[in-house]
């Protein structure tokens, strides 16, 4: 039994080292034409941490697979879509969690980003999980307004660390990504 827990611990550590974002599903809105999709595709392709892109053109959705070990910038993904002239309607990140304890309205440092979980039950995340980014300009303005009314925390509106934030869960940067499951 002890051996099993040691093995689990060892596995856990190695998983912990591999904790990272693996994929992203980017739904771009405002696109109406083939050229628009192509331009968005080529813009996303230029991200240094993207290995390959699968497309669902009918739904204007791009599935990004990230390079192993490369630091992923969620804001850079949005920036590329906006540079192409469009907006992010939905961004779902697939991340590999290793027994990460998640609480509502608490921060988790994860793969170089600080995640603020909203609208979640307290739970422990293990394995590949999908988390949806709900910051401004990652969802429709309607949805953003809806989430804004549900939280009193000013950091949600700015996406930056502020006094309201609980300090537990060391912040990797001032930028806080608000996410839900």
């Amino acid at each position, binding site marked *: 039994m002890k051996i099993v827990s040691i093995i689990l611990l060892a596995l856990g550590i190695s998983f912990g080292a591999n904790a990272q974002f693996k994929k992203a599903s980017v*739904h771009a*809105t*405002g696109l*109406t*034409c*083939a*050229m*628009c*999709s*192509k*331009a*968005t*595709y*080529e*813009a996303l*392709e*230029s991200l240094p941490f993207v290995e390959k892109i699968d*497309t669902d*053109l*009918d739904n204007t959705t791009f599935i990004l697979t990230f390079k192993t070990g490369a630091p992923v910038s969620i804001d850079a993904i949005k920036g590329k879509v*906006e*540079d*192409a*002239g*469009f*907006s992010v*309607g939905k961004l779902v990140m697939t991340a590999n969690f290793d027994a990460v304890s998640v609480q509502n309205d608490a921060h988790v440092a994860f793969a170089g980003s600080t995640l603020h979980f909203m609208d979640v039950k307290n739970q422990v995340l293990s394995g590949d999980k999908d988390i949806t980014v709900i910051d401004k300009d990652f969802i*429709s*303005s309607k949805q953003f307004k809806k989430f804004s009314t549900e939280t009193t925390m000013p950091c949600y509106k700015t996406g930056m660390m502020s006094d309201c934030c609980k300090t537990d869960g060391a912040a990797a940067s001032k930028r806080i990504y608000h996410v839900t499951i």
Partner: protein
Amino acid sequence: MKRILIIAMIIMAGNGIAAAQELYVNTEPASNMPANSLGIRLTNKFFNMKHSGDNGMRFEPEVMWGANKRLMLHVLGYASNMMQPSVKLEGGGVYAKYRFLSLDQQHAHFRMAAYVRGAVINNPYYPEMPDGSHAMRPYDNKELDLEGVTSGVNGGIIATQLLHKLALSTTLGYSRYMNNVKDEIPDDFSRSSVNYSLSAGYLVLPVKYKSFQQTNLNLYVELLGKTNTDAVGRGSYLDIAPAVQFIFNSTTRLDLSYRTQLTGDMARNTSNSFLIRVEHNIFNIKK
């Protein structure tokens, strides 16, 4: 007029599988080209010239650049045989468009942009006739434009709405005409005008998007109007311009359009024209 519009709307609304298109042929949408991309256009216009009975043609090479996500810039050249028997370089122009509003939703958006255009042209205001030939009819024209006819500036606002299956766009602009390089605008021409347009477009093919290699077929109907606002040379016209467009490999575009006058009281030497254009886009010019 009204009936044509209604019919067009019914066709577009009834076509459940069609998606809207806003890559208008005779006007610009409020949307911009992607940042960090380059477009090259060659436009050829053919038109009948009433005074001589000859066919005129104008050749417009154009380079377009997406400076950033809000600003795009065009540089154009003009060459034509409109004012003399053989084709010559007439001048050039610049065009800048700034998108200041963008409300994107799933399969819908509303966008607004402001634009300015400027042209420097070296052309006479009355055509030269070759020696020994006579005009079929007197040159009766009060229409000036910045696409090769006169120097000047034009500015305006564009609003584009994607509504379910219909992409509608409208432009309202004001032009101030200036003297050409060697010739002054004659006193009987209006030195300013207002331009307005309403454009509609929809995607016919492909029915279902699967790959970037699929050829797209788009259809457009555009209403293009202009009013000379000075007391001299006052007059208006409204043209209709249906167009068909092919997009190959999601990067290369072929446009064909016919433009003809619906109604108007402005004297025009040319009121019908045919346009053919090839455009190629290079995305992400800087990696």
